[in-house]
């Protein structure tokens, strides 16, 4: 018998499996459950994008592309970033097209982190930063963002977390699961703390196009003096409803993008070609589709937040992404107990907040990437559940 515990690396074994695995398994056996648990758009990719992918197949574009991605796509990414945010990047040296934003995050961390380097991660947040850091031999240092601060990272918190070993700050905004965003002035305050240090920033802006307050999104690299230390992660999954196409990108200083491209070349070779052709169409002609979906999310966002508040739960007003993050502390249950009982009693699946870090305890993540009817039905069941357990 092989002793796999001896065979698998200590690092990999040290990474905790998702704490809500059991919960997932239960949900999977309940096909009639209503789910608010999905972290992707309910919209299907706009037809013109799908059609562009199909056309590329018809033309026989089935080969590898350049390691960094089709130059035509990189040019479109830069044109888009310039047009939307007024920041210019060089398509030839400052862009890398990756397999989803996730790959770009992994590459960036692997290229920046030496053993023992500290990575500052504001939590609650998406689940990959910590394991990627650990896999790279780094040390995650988490900061708890608070509901009363709008789940923003405050400059004072950052200052306190910085040590001699701090190498990288993760900025996961707009945030999954909280829906918190950082305004331009919030980012400027963070920039003030970073000035004069060598700390790099990985700004995961995958939800950047989905912001619901008037001022819109500001990439961290647009903040004065921050471009040279920032890797911006973005992609097609959320804004263009292209999760299954697995396509993202990183923008950053050329020496870093060059190194990331090197690793990408050995691990991946090049991102999926069909997806890249589809993505060109997305950037070129789908602004209206993105706006239509954003508008629709915005209606649902108000609807769901209102629903939670009406049942007496405190619910932070999310200003980005497509999640509501109501607080369930008043019921005296843990997040996991709440989610498990809710599923059992009312057949509604939500994600316990602690899946996104300990500081998510006491909250549940409810996606509003669902039709209004679906949300309405889920809310009425949750309301009945809350009433019963008050």
């Amino acid at each position: 018998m092989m002793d796999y515990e001896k065979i698998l690396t200590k690092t990999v074994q040290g990474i905790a499996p998702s704490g809500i695995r059991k919960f997932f398994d239960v949900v999977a056996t309940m096909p009639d459950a209503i789910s608010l648990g999905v972290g992707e758009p309910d919209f299907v990719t706009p037809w013109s994008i799908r059609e562009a992918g199909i056309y590329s197949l018809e033309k026989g574009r089935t080969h590898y592309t350049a390691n960094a991605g089709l130059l035509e796509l990189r040019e479109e990414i830069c044109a888009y970033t310039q047009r939307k945010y007024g920041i210019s990047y060089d398509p030839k040296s400052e862009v890398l097209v990756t397999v989803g934003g996730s790959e770009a995050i992994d590459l960036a961390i692997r290229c920046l982190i030496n053993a023992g380097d500290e990575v500052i991660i504001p939590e609650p947040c998406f689940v990959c930063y910590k394991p990627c850091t650990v896999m790279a031999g780094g040390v995650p240092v988490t900061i708890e963002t608070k509901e009363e601060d709008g789940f923003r990272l405050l400059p004072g918190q950052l200052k306190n977390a910085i040590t001699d070993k701090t190498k990288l700050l993760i900025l996961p905004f707009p945030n999954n699961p909280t829906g918190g965003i950082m305004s331009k002035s919030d980012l400027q305050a963070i920039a003030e703390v970073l000035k004069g240090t060598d700390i790099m920033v990985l700004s995961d802006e995958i939800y950047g196009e989905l912001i619901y307050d008037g001022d819109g999104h500001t990439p961290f690299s647009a903040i004065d003096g921050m471009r040279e230390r920032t890797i911006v992660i973005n992609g097609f999954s959320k804004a263009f409803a292209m999760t299954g196409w697995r396509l993202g990108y990183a923008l950053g200083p050329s020496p870093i993008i060059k190194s990331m491209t090197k690793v990408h070349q050995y691990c991946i070779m090049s991102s999926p070609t069909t997806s890249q052709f589809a993505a060109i169409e997305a950037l070129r002609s789908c602004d209206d589709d993105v706006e239509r979906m954003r508008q629709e999310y915005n209606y649902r966002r108000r609807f769901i937040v209102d629903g939670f508040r009406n049942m007496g739960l405190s619910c932070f007003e999310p200003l980005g992404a497509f999640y509501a993050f109501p607080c369930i502390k008043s019921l005296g249950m843990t997040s996991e107990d709440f989610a498990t009982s809710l599923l059992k009693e009312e057949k509604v699946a939500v994600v316990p907040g602690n899946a996104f870090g300990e500081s998510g305890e006491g909250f549940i993540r409810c996606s509003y990437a669902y039709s209004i009817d679906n949300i309405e039905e889920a809310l009425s069941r949750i309301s009945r559940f809350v009433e019963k357990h008050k």
Partner: protein
Amino acid sequence: MTNDILNILDNAKTPLSNEKIANMLGKDEAEVAKIIKGLEKDNVIVGYKTLINWEKTDRDLVTSIIELRISPQRGEGFDKVAEKIYKYPQVKSLFLMSGSYDLCVVIEGQSMKDVALFVASKLAPMDNVLSTSTSFVLKKYKDDGLVFYNNEEDTRQVITL
């Protein structure tokens, strides 16, 4: 806010209460109700219709599109003729067109014969009608923004982070 309300109503696939619309916009229900009443009164909101796929029922229904060439009347243009036409309940829609013909009439009837008779006895003999060209709809794939035979279901995993 008026445009938001119209946008929501225009895209709604199920009837929406004023309360629901108010919640979606983060506004007061009474305020939304008042705006909608105003829009109805001004005929901006012309009406509320249900889109039915009659093919799935046992009712026989034939839809046809009739292209009419018209000689416009002095001082009235096409409006007078149009009015005479749209007053028939069989006429489902009527549009004034640019291009090679003038009026596009959408007619619904129980059978092709039904429709043909209507064209022959009512439309063709009208004073200003120069010619008619009738085409029958064989299958409706999409109407008014809604797809009749949608095969795109929600295939997402139940939970993803």
